[in-house]
C-alpha cells in the first residue's frame, strides 16, 4: 500500500464521488422501476381496454358493472357502491383499481427493498408498502419508492446487531421473527406516520395548481402538474382539481383549457418516442408499445416509470406541458368537458369545432418540445449508460457495486482502506480481483448435513484466527443467492452453485471435513486483517 496513492486519491475524487453518487441514485431508481415495466404495461392494457370509456368496456373486469343485475357474472369480488339515484349496489371490484392501488406500488417497494437487502428486504418492503397504501386514498408510488428501500435498510441494520451472535440452529427462527415483527411494526408506522404525509403532499400540490389557475399563471402550472403526474398523482390533480375548475369555466365560456392541462397526451408521447429513438436496452424496446397504450389508449401511467428512472426527463415533460398550455392560451382554445382517459381520441371527442386548430397544435407542440428536450437529455447520457453496460444491466451493476461498498458495516477499517488506496478512476470497475471476503456460504444438496458441518469447521477456524466478523452460513444450493463473496461446494455441485451465484468466488472441496481450502481462506482473512492494521497505523 503506497501512501502516495492514498493521499493523492481524495483530491480529484470528491467531485467524482458526488457524480458517482448521483449516478447511483439514478441507477437505483431505474432498478426499482425497470423490472416492473411489464406490470405497468399489463395494467395499462387492461385499463385502456376494460374501463367504462375504454375500447372494450367491461363492467366485470373494469370494475364498474353492477353485480346485482339479474343474470350477471357471479363469484367475482364486489364492493358496495353508491348509484346515481342514491341507492347502493354490489359493484365489481375488477382488476384496474386493485392493480394500480396495490400491485404496482407493492412491486416497486419490493424491488426497492430487494436492492437494499435481497429477498428479506423485498419481503419487509412489501409488508410496509401495504401499511402505506391502506393509510391513504392517494396512490402510493412516491411512498413506495421511499418506504420500500428504507424499511429494507432498517431490517438490515437490525439484523447486523446480532449477526453471527445467534446460537447455531436458531438463526432461522430469529430471522423469521425479526423480519415479521419489524415488518408489522413498520407497516403500522407507515400507515399512521407516512401515508398522511403523502396525502398532505398531494393536497398541497392540488392547492398550488388551483391557486395558479385563479391567478392566470397557466403555463407555470406544468411545473407542478408534470412532476405530480409521474408520481401517479395525476388523478388527484386532474379529477380532483382541474376538472372541477374546468367545469366552472365551461359554464361561463363553453370550454376550458384546464381540461387539457393534465390529459394532454403530447408530453408523454414525447418521452416515449425519445426513448424509442435514443434510449438503450429494455427501456428502448418497450417504449414503442407503451406509446400506443399511452397516446391511443390514454393511459398516461405507462410513461411515468420512464421518467422516474431518469428523473432529469421531468424537465422535458414540464417544458412540453407548458408549451401545450401556452398554445391553448394563445388560440383561446379548450375542451368542452374532461378528456378521460387522456387519449388523443378522447381529446378530440371533447374538442369544440372552433378549438380544433388550437387543441391539435397544443398536443403536437407539446409532443415536439418534450421529444426534443428528452432526446437531448438521453443523448447526453447515452454514452455513459452504454459504457456502463446498457440500461437495466448498468443499473444492476452499479447497484451491486453500491451495495458492496456499503455492506461492510463490520469492516469499516477495511472499507476505508479500500477507499483510500484504490485510485479514483477505479471505482467504476466492478469486481476488483482481490475483493476481501466478508461472507462465505457452504452449499450442499439439501442443506441438511454436510454443508452445516463444513460451515461449523470454517467458522471455528476463523474465530480462532480472530476473524469472527466474517459470516459463514450453510444453505441448499437451490437457495443460494448472488450476494456472497465466497461459495464453497463439493466438486459435483460447483457448476450448479456458480449458476446461482455468478459473481461470487467459487471453491470446490472433496472433503468438507478437512480441506486445504479452509486454511487458505483463514490465511487470507488473517492477512487482510493485518494489512488493515498496518494501513491504519501508518496513515
Amino acid at each position: 500500500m503506497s501512501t502516495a496513492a492514498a493521499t493523492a486519491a481524495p483530491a480529484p475524487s470528491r467531485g467524482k464521488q458526488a457524480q458517482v453518487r448521483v449516478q447511483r441514485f439514478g441507477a437505483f431508481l431505474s432498478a426499482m422501476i425497470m423490472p416492473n415495466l411489464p406490470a405497468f404495461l399489463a395494467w395499462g392494457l387492461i385499463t385502456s381496454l376494460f374501463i367504462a370509456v375504454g375500447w372494450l368496456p367491461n363492467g366485470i373486469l373494469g370494475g364498474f358493472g353492477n353485480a346485482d343485475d339479474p343474470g350477471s357474472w357471479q363469484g367475482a369480488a364486489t364492493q358496495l357502491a353508491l348509484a346515481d339515484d342514491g341507492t347502493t349496489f354490489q359493484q365489481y371490484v375488477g382488476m384496474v383499481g386493485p392493480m394500480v392501488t396495490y400491485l404496482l406500488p407493492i412491486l416497486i417497494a419490493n424491488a426497492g427493498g430487494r436492492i437494499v437487502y435481497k429477498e428479506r428486504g423485498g419481503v419487509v418492503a412489501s409488508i410496509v408498502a401495504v401499511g402505506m397504501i391502506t393509510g391513504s386514498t392517494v396512490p402510493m408510488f412516491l411512498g413506495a419508492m421511499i418506504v420500500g428501500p428504507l424499511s429494507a435498510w432498517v431490517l438490515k441494520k437490525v439484523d447486523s446487531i446480532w449477526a453471527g451472535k445467534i446460537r447455531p440452529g436458531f438463526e432461522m427462527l430469529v430471522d423469521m421473527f425479526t423480519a415479521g415483527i419489524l415488518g408489522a411494526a413498520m407497516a403500522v408506522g407507515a400507515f399512521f406516520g407516512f401515508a398522511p404525509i403523502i396525502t398532505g403532499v398531494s393536497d398541497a400540490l392540488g392547492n398550488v395548481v388551483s391557486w395558479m389557475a385563479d391567478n392566470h399563471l397557466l403555463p407555470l402550472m406544468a411545473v407542478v402538474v408534470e412532476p405530480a403526474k409521474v408520481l401517479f398523482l395525476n388523478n388527484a390533480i386532474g379529477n380532483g382539481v382541474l376538472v372541477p375548475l374546468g367545469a366552472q369555466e365551461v359554464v361561463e365560456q363553453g370550454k376550458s383549457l384546464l381540461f387539457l392541462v393534465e390529459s394532454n397526451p403530447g408530453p408523454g408521447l414525447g418521452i416515449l418516442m425519445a426513448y424509442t429513438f435514443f434510449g438503450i436496452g429494455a427501456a428502448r424496446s418497450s417504449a414503442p408499445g407503451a406509446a400506443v397504450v399511452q397516446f391511443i389508449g390514454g393511459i398516461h401511467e405507462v410513461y411515468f416509470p420512464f421518467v422516474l428512472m431518469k428523473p432529469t426527463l421531468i424537465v422535458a415533460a414540464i417544458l412540453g406541458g407548458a408549451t401545450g398550455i401556452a398554445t391553448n392560451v394563445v388560440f383561446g382554445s379548450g375542451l368542452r368537458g374532461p378528456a378521460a382517459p387522456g387519449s388523443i381520441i378522447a381529446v378530440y371527442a371533447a374538442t369544440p369545432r372552433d378549438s380544433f386548430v388550437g387543441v391539435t397544435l397544443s398536443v403536437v407542440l407539446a409532443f415536439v418540445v418534450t421529444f426534443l428536450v428528452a432526446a437531448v437529455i438521453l443523448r447526453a447520457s447515452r454514452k455513459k449508460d452504454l459504457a456502463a453496460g446498457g440500461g437495466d444491466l448498468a443499473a444492476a451493476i452499479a447497484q451491486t457495486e453500491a451495495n458492496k461498498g456499503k455492506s461492510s458495516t463490520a469492516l469499516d477499517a477495511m472499507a476505508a482502506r479500500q477507499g483510500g488506496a484504490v485510485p479514483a478512476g477505479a471505482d467504476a470497475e466492478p469486481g476488483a480481483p482481490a475483493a476481501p471476503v466478508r461472507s462465505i456460504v457452504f452449499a450442499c444438496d439439501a442443506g441438511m448435513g454436510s454443508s452445516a458441518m463444513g460451515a461449523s469447521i470454517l467458522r471455528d477456524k476463523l474465530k480462532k484466527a480472530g476473524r469472527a466478523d466474517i459470516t459463514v452460513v450453510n444453505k441448499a444450493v437451490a437457495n443460494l443467492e448472488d450476494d456472497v463473496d465466497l461459495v464453497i461446494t463439493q466438486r459435483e455441485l460447483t457448476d450448479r452453485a456458480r449458476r446461482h451465484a455468478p459473481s461470487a468466488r467459487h471453491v470446490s472441496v472433496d472433503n468438507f471435513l478437512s480441506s486445504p481450502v479452509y486454511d487458505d481462506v483463514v490465511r487470507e482473512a488473517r492477512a487482510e486483517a493485518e494489512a488493515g492494521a498496518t494501513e491504519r497505523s501508518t496513515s
Partner: protein
Amino acid sequence: MTELLSADLIVPAGRAGSKEEAIREAGALLVGSGAVDPGYVDAMLERELTISTYMGSYLAIPHGTNEAKGAIHRSAVCLVRYEEPVDWDGNPVRVVVGIAGVGDEHLSLLSRIALVFSDGERVQRVLDATTREQLTAVLAEVEPA
C-alpha cells in the same frame, strides 16, 4: 446434545458390512426411536445415489432427501461406529452418523461432530472408542461453532 443423540442411538460396534447395510442399520435406529417413518430409510438410500455422503476422516452422514422431510416426526441423530471399515463408494468409513433433521435444531450437534472429525487426534479417539461413554465424552469436548 443428549436429546437428539440419546444413548440408544449410539452403537459402539455396528454389524453392517456394506454401505447399504450400514444405511439400513442407521435407518433402523432412527425408526426404532420413533423419530422417523420406515419410509425415511428408502429416502436415505435414494439420497445416497445423487451424491455420496462420505465426508472424509472415516465419516459418512447418510440422511434423507428434502422431499422426505415429511417422514420425520422429530429431529434425531444416530451414531454407529464400525470396527472394520465399510466400503463407502471406495472410501473407508468407520463412523456412520444418520441424520433426520427438520428445522435447525440438529445443527449444533452436527457442528460438534464436524469439529471432532476435523481434528485428527479426536478422530483417532473416536475410532478407538469402544463404549458409548467414550464416544459421548469426545463429542462433549468441543463447543459448537
